[in-house]
């Protein structure tokens, strides 16, 4: 390969960082796709793929994606929880790939919760 120039170093760093920043565990946004049996049966896998695709296409490097089990409202799966640092988590139900796109555009990038899609804001009491 040709010799590295100073600009190349920064370019490699930025693209490599996108692939590895997850390891540092600090993102601005955390999306949890609920993947209990009910979620998977209702198509959570396709939702997960849509989420990952959005992140890829929009070159986002501050969004972490994790999975968790059933959120307790099996009839409204597939569901996902979006948590922006410093804000209460928002649960979305009855997700489709199109709705995932809307959530990215309005909530994650725009900072405005699409209330018509949201199921609940905040989380249950745990103690």
């Amino acid at each position, binding site marked *: 390969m040709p010799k590295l120039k100073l600009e190349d170093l920064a370019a490699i760093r930025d693209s*490599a960082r996108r692939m590895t920043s997850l390891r540092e565990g600090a993102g601005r946004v955390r999306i949890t796709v609920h993947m209990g049996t009910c979620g998977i049966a209702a198509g959570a896998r396709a939702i997960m793929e849509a989420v990952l695709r959005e992140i890829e296409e929009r070159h986002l490097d501050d969004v972490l994606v994790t999975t968790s089990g059933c959120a307790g409202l099996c009839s409204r799966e597939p569901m996902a929880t979006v948590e922006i640092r410093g804000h209460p988590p928002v649960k979305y139900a009855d997700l489709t790939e199109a709705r995932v796109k809307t959530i990215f555009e309005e909530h994650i990038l725009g900072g405005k919760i699409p209330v018509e899609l949201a199921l609940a804001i905040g989380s249950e009491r745990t103690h």
Partner: protein
Amino acid sequence: MPYRVHLMVCAGTGCVSNGSLGVRDALEKEIHRRGLGGEVQVVTTGCNGFCGAGPLLVVQPDGIFYQQLTPKEIPLLVEEHLIKGRPVPKLMYVPPEEKVPIPKMSEIPFFKGQRLVALRNRGLIDPEKIEDYIARDGYTAFAKALTQMTPEQIIAEIKAAGLRGRGGAGFATGVKWEKVRQAVGEPKYIICNGDEGDPGAFMDRSIFESDPHSVIEGMLIGARAMGARWGVVYVRNEYPLALQRIQIAIEKAREYGLLGENIFETDFSFDISVTRGAGAFVCGEETALIASVEGRLGDPRARPPYPAEYGLWGKPTCINNVETWANVPPIILRGAKWYSQIGTESSKGTKVFSLVGKIRNTGLVEVPMGITLRELIYDIGGGIPGGKKFKAVQTGGPSGGCIPAGPLLDQPIVYDGRGERRPLSDALDLPIDYESLTDVGSMMGSGGLVVMDEDTCMVDVARYFLAFTQDESCGACTPCREGTKLMLDILTKIVEGHGTMEDLESLEEIGRVVKETSLCGLGKTAPNPVLTTLRYFRDEYIAHIQAHKCPAHVCRELNVYRIDPEICVQRGHGCGVCRRECPEKAIFGEKNQPHRIDQALCKKCGVCVDVCHFHAVIVE
């Protein structure tokens, strides 16, 4: 597409020998089978540090820590954690004497107290991928040093940071660099000393294995500062994985044009070759190492002239230890001010230690200078296993000294790292920095830390370490060659029960002479374990000599084995296992009758103690 989960599998030497590559293969197979190949990435990293709990896996971005994995647990782990999103508590770390597992790596006490500078990338990158290193700001410090700083500014920055050599002696790195820069002679060389020879020490190996590019970048910055054209990385051949990773890293750096001619389109050129050491302890000494690189016998020579003036091939040469080089890039990138805030007045930054011996959390840790022995041994190390008492800690490898438990009141005065000198009522409060360790008769050394409990015989320990240095003495100078031999003979006499009180004085006298008159660091420090144990554990020596007893029951020649007749009959019903197993046929007795040992026949091998289920054999 970016992955949503990164599985960081530790592939340091410790975990690999515990089977971590099998765990990795099982993970890859299972992830493929469950169709998660596009979402989950398996990354093999260098040593994570918690070697005692391996094979290890950290799941990111959650930071969930799994330990002691085997391939058969992998399907469950993938199903539960990666598909259903439920971390698996039974594979997590459970602190001793507690029942609740700690899921997050960042909350486990072993990791919580550490501060990573030299090991900043450990467990976060694949050491064989240069892109992973670059993603974590790799080579950015070098680019800054090359394009925005003059050589003088680089040296001034290293000086201001207060970085001192991590190989043991603690010489100021910036001062050494300045000497080499000002020395007359071309070309200039720089060397990375990776000839880590202390028994139980693995700091350098771990850096090579987990982050080899940090060493290369440190050397590039050093080369720019000193005007060096060539570098040598000296690695011992017993470190195959370290050798392989540094070689891959050098090749990758060359491919990217980070080593070679006209780097970053400037007139700066630098390249590195690797020399394998054959594993002689003395080759860690700089002049012996240079002789070895030149293809000669690894013998040290008298200094001055120092290598800074007359080094490799007679040219000005800078030798720094692996850990020292790895500290350089963060100093340049983040500045001397940031670095010098870590540590104590005279010892700046952090130090990597390998924590071994009678300690729960065996492994590799990096802590700020000035941390106390207590924090290191109890908070991070988890204390002494089996409810035993802490007896001593040996720092600095075979040439270091033993620091005893209890007060250090008779000490001259102990440096507290903050500019004050005062006696210490408990050795565990000793701050770990260059001066404090020297004050108590030990040394920082390269960072080996051996913890000893009440079952350790200090005379035996002194003899063990001296036997090592005596064996590794190159024989070039008389005090080291003859002196260590004489001392070893005396120590052997004492542990076999034939010592006299005059022997103690001879040990001290010979020890002093060897220390003061030896040619190189090996001899100058070899008597340390003997002299410190004589200073702090003299009563143990006296017990061996006068009472013919080893208080810790380690020196078998001095032990007397006896069978408690009551326990033997009441609990064991004279089972006769000891009689059958005794290789000397020295045990007599009948079924249901007490057994006894014929002291005239007993060779003190201790087999009877090991085989008796009823603890009826008593050692006196």
